[in-house]
């Protein structure tokens, strides 16, 4: 059982999908089954948490089989601290996305849930693959269901948004494929056999120049997915047009594929290029522009959902800034912030979904004083908003703080500029809250809105609990992350922990197996 655990986690949604296709057309049956399948996906992933051994170097639960020997591609899955968090985020958000589609989607329900389950398999596959070819298959597999989720069940400009999403990400990923192939061929020239194994490819020695080319090829693929600043324009469109659950998954998990790509592939495979001063400088500046620009654009939005969409650009800027700080704090903070962003932005999109189902508008000016009509809604929105704004004792604070600490260690100016993002973030979120929830009810239509029902509250509760857990006691998360983060930093800056030791505690406990869980 243990040696196939990852395959089970990966294939459970797919199995759910196959059964779903055989079910009769009854709406309730389909809904219940889809939710059960997602829940099963979550339950089978739970043993990962309990059996994961903190502090053990390398990957756990590894599975490896030959797949296409002619190409050197393997079916190779494995899990480390970073992927553990990502997989758990995916399975949890999977359940919640299903739950929040319950009444929102009535049209072509079977195809809708089928697409979600396929998407789920694709995303889990991305986070588990240790073979570049396998990774690429899953990476692209995600595009098609997402295209349909936006394009079929989306808003008025859904087709434009869907194809824009598809074209952007596909153009990026095929260029990334060229980078992968270059690396693959370099490895062949040095070792005489073709392989896509990450661990083998890591042994490839490449000139700095070649590394930089490959780095930029990877960068295009990952940066479009994140999305980093100049490549972000697909995101607001996709978010605004997607159905609620689509936005939730898109923000919570799909974007993380990009940042995960940087951490799993760009940094370890191309350490010299990643550590190159000018490259790091460019990427950090792009991240900071993303942070500030995203936040400023948020202040201007009239559309509730677009505001949250742009806030993603800003928050993901923090995540990439953390990565390119290239120190333990930056990277650990970045991974944690990715989880945080999944939780808090996921909640914000669900909040919008709840109100949109009732009023069918997302114009901020249509609302006001909702606290009088929907007290439960107001409380939950407040928590989501504060978690996103980085209030201490909620999750966002921990992530942003650690990232800023890392950025400060790397370059004080980065931290100084990035901090404005935190302030602006609080500004646009609080202002949004004020305009929609506080004050008197200005629009008569809002007087009769029913408050959230049990299902709607229930789908927020796990996320709220998770947000508070990270905010109050983030240690388990940092413990899980310590080992993989140490490995990445050691790879990019060999001898980092021996020379100057900004965080000696992190490095020392990192090598002890079975740490402080």
């Amino acid at each position, binding site marked *: 059982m243990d040696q196939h655990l990852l395959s089970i986690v990966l294939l459970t949604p797919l199995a759910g999908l196959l059964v779903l296709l055989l079910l009769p057309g009854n709406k309730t049956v389909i809904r219940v089954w889809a939710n059960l399948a997602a829940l099963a996906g979550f339950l089978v992933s739970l043993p990962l948490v309990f059996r994961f051994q903190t502090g053990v170097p390398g990957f756990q639960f590894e599975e490896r089989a030959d*797949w*296409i*020997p*002619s*190409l050197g591609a393997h079916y190779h899955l494995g899990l480390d601290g970073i992927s553990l968090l990502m997989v758990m985020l995916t399975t949890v958000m999977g359940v919640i996305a299903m739950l929040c589609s319950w009444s929102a989607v009535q049209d*072509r329900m079977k*195809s809708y849930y089928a697409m979600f389950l396929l998407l789920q398999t694709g995303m889990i596959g991305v986070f588990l693959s240790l073979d570049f070819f396998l990774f*690429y*298959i899953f990476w*692209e*597999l995600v*595009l*098609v269901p997402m*295209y*349909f989720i936006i*394009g*079929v069940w989306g808003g008025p400009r*859904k*087709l434009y948004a869907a*194809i824009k999403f*598809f*074209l952007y990400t*596909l*153009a990026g990923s*095929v*260029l990334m*494929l*060229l980078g992968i*192939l*270059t690396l*693959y*061929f370099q490895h062949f020239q040095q070792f005489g056999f073709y392989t896509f194994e990450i661990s083998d490819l890591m042994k490839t020695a490449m000139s700095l120049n070649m590394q930089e080319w490959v780095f930029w090829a990877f960068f295009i693929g990952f940066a479009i997915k994140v999305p980093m600043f100049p490549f972000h324009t697909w995101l607001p469109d996709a978010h605004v047009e997607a159905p609620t659950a689509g936005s939730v998954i898109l923000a919570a998990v799909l974007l993380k594929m990009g940042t995960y790509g940087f951490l799993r592939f760009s940094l370890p495979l191309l350490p010299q290029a990643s550590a190159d001063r000018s490259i790091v400088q460019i990427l950090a500046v792009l991240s900071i522009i993303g942070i500030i620009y995203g936040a400023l654009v948020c202040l201007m939005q009239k559309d509730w959902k677009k505001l949250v969409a742009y806030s993603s650009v800003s928050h993901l800027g923090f995540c990439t800034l953390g990565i390119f700080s290239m120190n333990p704090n930056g990277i650990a903070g970045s991974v944690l912030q990715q989880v945080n962003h999944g939780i808090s932005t996921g909640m914000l999109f669900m909040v919008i979904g709840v109100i949109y189902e009732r009023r069918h508008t997302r114009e901020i000016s249509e609302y006001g004083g909702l606290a009088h009509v929907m007290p439960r809604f107001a409380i939950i929105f407040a928590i989501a908003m504060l978690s996103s704004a980085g209030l201490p004792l909620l999750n966002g604070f921990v992530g942003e703080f650690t990232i800023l600490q890392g950025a400060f260690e790397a370059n004080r100016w980065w931290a100084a500029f990035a901090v404005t993002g935190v302030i602006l973030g609080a500004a646009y979120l609080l202002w949004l809250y004020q305009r929609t929830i506080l004050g008197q009810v200005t629009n008569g239509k809002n007087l009769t809105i029913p408050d959230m029902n049990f299902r709607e509250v229930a789908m927020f509760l796990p996320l709220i609990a998770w947000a508070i857990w990270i905010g109050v006691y983030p240690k388990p998360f940092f413990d899980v992350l310590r080992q993989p983060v140490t490995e990445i930093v050691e790879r990019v800056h060999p001898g980092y922990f021996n020379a100057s030791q900004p965080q000696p505690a992190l490095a020392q406990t990192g090598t002890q197996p079975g740490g402080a869980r």
Partner: protein
Amino acid sequence: MIDSLYSAQDHFSILPALMLALFGCAILLFDFWVFPDPRQRKWLLIFVVLAEGFTGFGLVKQMHWIAGNGGALSAFNGSVQVDQFSIFFNWLFLIAALIVALVSYQYLENAGEHHGEYYSLILFAQCGMYFLATGADLVTLFIGLELMALSFYVMVGFLRSEKRSNEAALKYLLLGAFSSGFLVYGFSVLYGIAGSTNLRTIADTVASRPAWDPMVYLALITTSVGLLFKVAAAPFHMWAPDAYEGAPTTVTAYLSVASKAASFAFLLRLFYGQLAPFAAIREVWAPILAVIAVITMTVGNLAAINQTNVKRLLAYSSISHAGYILLGVVAGNEQGITGVEVYLMVYTFMNLGAFLVLIALRRQKIIGDEMDDISGLMKKSPGYAVLMLIFLISLAGIPPTAGFLGKYYIFWSLIEAHQYTLAVIATLYAAVAIYYYFRIVKSMFVSDVKDKEPMATSFGMRVALAVSGVMTLVIGIYPEPFLKLAQNSLLLR
């Protein structure tokens, strides 16, 4: 005496082609002697299946022979060469012909032009293709080419009462004859250089001359024009959209898949391997072909964007696929040539599949090839829509479908050949292709049903769709045996 003219080995080497020709003639005779009643035409279909059965048997026997004796079977004083390469391609032709024949019955009934000679034309064309893949002599190759082309000229114009079909046939005939002229001119120059029509002799002679020898250059250019016309590469692609759109859709499917594969087999025979006359002067033609490939991808992809007729859109897309396949030839390394073969193999299934759906859209009095005809297909017949989605995703080269592997090999070979610019262009066009393939997807899945008539389904159609759909997915998910097959059939000797 007769032994030296026509030995058992000779006979064995062309056995599949003999079967095709024999059954082709038999169908012609039976059509008006034995089965004059139109309702008996299904027997003709059974003849086709039988013919393909015997052909397949011949191919299997040839495979055994080659596995046992190794290398290649050369016959008729070296004018025919059976090797892994020819067998690989002949399987592709066989699959394409069989699938097309299976769905033609219903199609031609609905189009009101069901005549027995159609089936013999399919077999004759396949017979011509056999010699394109097997020939090792200029004359053999040319006869194969003309046999294939003539059959197609007739088939393209098979809908006699439709103006489009007649126009298409005439265009195809005129341009095809013109390009054949170029090809034969090149052949005559080659013959003039070498004093022989045998490919091996010509290859040796060309190799002994300087690379930029003007006569060789002349032969190269004229031959290439003929070849590029056949594979529908720009700027010799003008016939393709019209011929594809006007022809009966079954013929379009056959033309776009089998004829293209045969022409590429022909092209490889002349450009790669020890038999190839032009293999020695790679440095001369590689840049030319690179430019042609880029123009072909550009024309195909950009013209496809605005098409409102699905058939025409697929015609342009098939032009752009020819560009990709040419890139494999340009790269010219092992990956490139394997890539050409893999690409053609997956293309056979996915492109046939896409056309099959269009064929099912042809009903009595409904042509069914406009974008409107396919709109809302998901609501009307979800099975067809999902299959079409798989074929389109595969054509667009998105994993986990077969089409990805074709593109993958092409990119791989370009990287290995250090052709980074070409690789980047090819990848960016892959993104453009998404746009127009997904216009069809959008129409099927998002738009409303405009045409309520049910699809024209038949048993043959179900079988054909199942085969192409399953193969498109299987090659995509577990490609190993198929890649091995293509690798083994590399043109080495």
